[in-house]
């Protein structure tokens, strides 16, 4: 395996919220180096600040300490592909309208942006649904639109915030295969946030386990399992138990 280049270096990152009556330390001493074109999973229990971390990476929020270095220069807003947990599709826009919007904001011509959008709609397997409204699609299909829309930003870096969290179990499994298929076909750096241990092991080149109060990096795991991975493989289960034992319980 070729040595992967670093693409994002997160150093001593911290985030504290100053509320009226209290200060809330959410993230502290986060150190992560993201490699180019890897599938990195950030795994952590609910409410641990995963989304805050992702928002900071996306530029939606500012850290209160530490720094993030994008090796190739910080991609300007607009050159980021973010997939949101609850799809966050524009309900008044068709599938095409949703997928082309990034390039529309950038002022690309209609022909150009629709050609690009078409490519990504086909990448996620939604050809034939270009003119459907999100409401007319199932949850899994809606999130495919979300993925296509993020890919259409043509960003090198894709941020996925619990993208399958709202799906039922069956759809979730097939979407996990789907995202790997898409990633293998169109390689980009993927940062995938989840609270689901199996999902993390099934997908990740590397898994960063987050936890503690305030949240920091607990441990890094590199599943040495060939893809497609098998949920019932003893090695899979062994890793799963190891991670679960190390995870903070949230009740």
């Amino acid at each position, binding site marked *: 395996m070729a040595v992967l280049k670093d693409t994002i270096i997160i150093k001593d990152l911290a985030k504290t919220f100053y509320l009226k009556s209290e200060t809330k330390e959410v993230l502290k001493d986060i150190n992560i180096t993201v490699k180019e074109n890897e599938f990195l999973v950030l795994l952590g229990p609910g409410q641990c600040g995963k989304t805050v971390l992702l*928002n900071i990476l*996306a*530029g*939606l929020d500012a850290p209160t300490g530490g720094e993030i270095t994008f090796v190739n220069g910080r991609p*300007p*807003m*607009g*050159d*980021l592909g*973010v997939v*949101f947990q*609850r799809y*966050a599709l*524009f*309900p*008044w*826009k068709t599938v095409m309208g949703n997928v082309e*919007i*990034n390039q*529309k*904001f*950038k002022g690309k011509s209609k022909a150009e942006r629709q050609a690009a959008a078409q490519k990504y709609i086909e990448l996620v397997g939604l050809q034939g649904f270009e003119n459907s*409204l999100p*409401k*007319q699609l199932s949850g899994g299909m809606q999130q495919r639109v979300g993925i296509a829309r993020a890919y259409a*930003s043509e960003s090198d870096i894709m941020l996925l915030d619990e993208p399958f969290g709202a799906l039922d179990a069956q759809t979730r499994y097939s979407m996990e295969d789907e995202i790997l298929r898409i990633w293998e076909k169109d390689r980009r750096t993927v940062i995938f946030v989840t609270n689901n241990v199996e999902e993390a092991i099934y997908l990740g080149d590397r898994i960063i386990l987050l936890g503690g109060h305030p949240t920091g990096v607990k441990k890094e795991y590199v599943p040495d399992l060939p893809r497609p991975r098998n949920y019932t493989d003893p090695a899979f289960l062994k890793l799963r138990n190891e991670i679960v034992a190390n995870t903070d319980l949230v009740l």
Partner: protein
Amino acid sequence: MDKAKNKKRNLILLSILGLVLFFGTWELLVHVGVISERNLCAPSTAVQTFLYKLTNTKPDGATLFAHFFSSIKLSLAGFVLAVVIGIPLGLFMGYYKGMDSFFTPLFEVVRPIPPIAWIPIVILTLGIGFKAKVFIIFISAFVPCVVNSYLGIKLTDPTLIDVAQTFGASRWQIFRTICIPSSMNMVFTGVRVSLAASWSTLVAAEMLASTKGLGYMIQIGRNLIRPDIIIVGMLTIGLVGALMGWVLSLFEKKVAPWRYK
């Protein structure tokens, strides 16, 4: 399938039954003599008067259509003005904090004043002509347009704004492509309320000396003790109001179809 069809048919029957029962009881009460015909005419008399008024100008000086036309001109003028000024104002106030701070206190003071309370000052400043009446109607229709458009912007899903931000949209692009479409629900609610308000303020506005209009016709009916004229005027106002609401909902389906598919 058949069950659903039956249910739908039953519901339609119920709607008809409601109307029939209401007008039937009314008709009966007048005929039996519980209600004097001098005070309230029977629905059948109203229908006769309605047909008569389609072509005759007596006793109030104009045909029903002339009254209707005069009224709709007034109320649409006030309504359109309110929509054209009120919606953009509400949208901008909802989006730009400066606009919000500048206009909201002013608006909050003006808002609770009922449209009818404007009449005396309007007579003094604008007189009793077309302009004065349009202004009264405008006031009544303006407030719901502003309030609902404002709320529509405020209620935009923040995640959708996040999406646009990560995609590098400018503030204006976010306003235009995210906030405005997502506010359309509320905007249309406002427009619907405005339309109803503009139409119902009509009678009040037409009390400022008129020679035509449905409100005027009702006034004359009272002076002449002609309940049938009053009822025809009232029912025309009711029917036209319902019709306008229906046309508006058709228009809404055209402009904001994603809510209905």
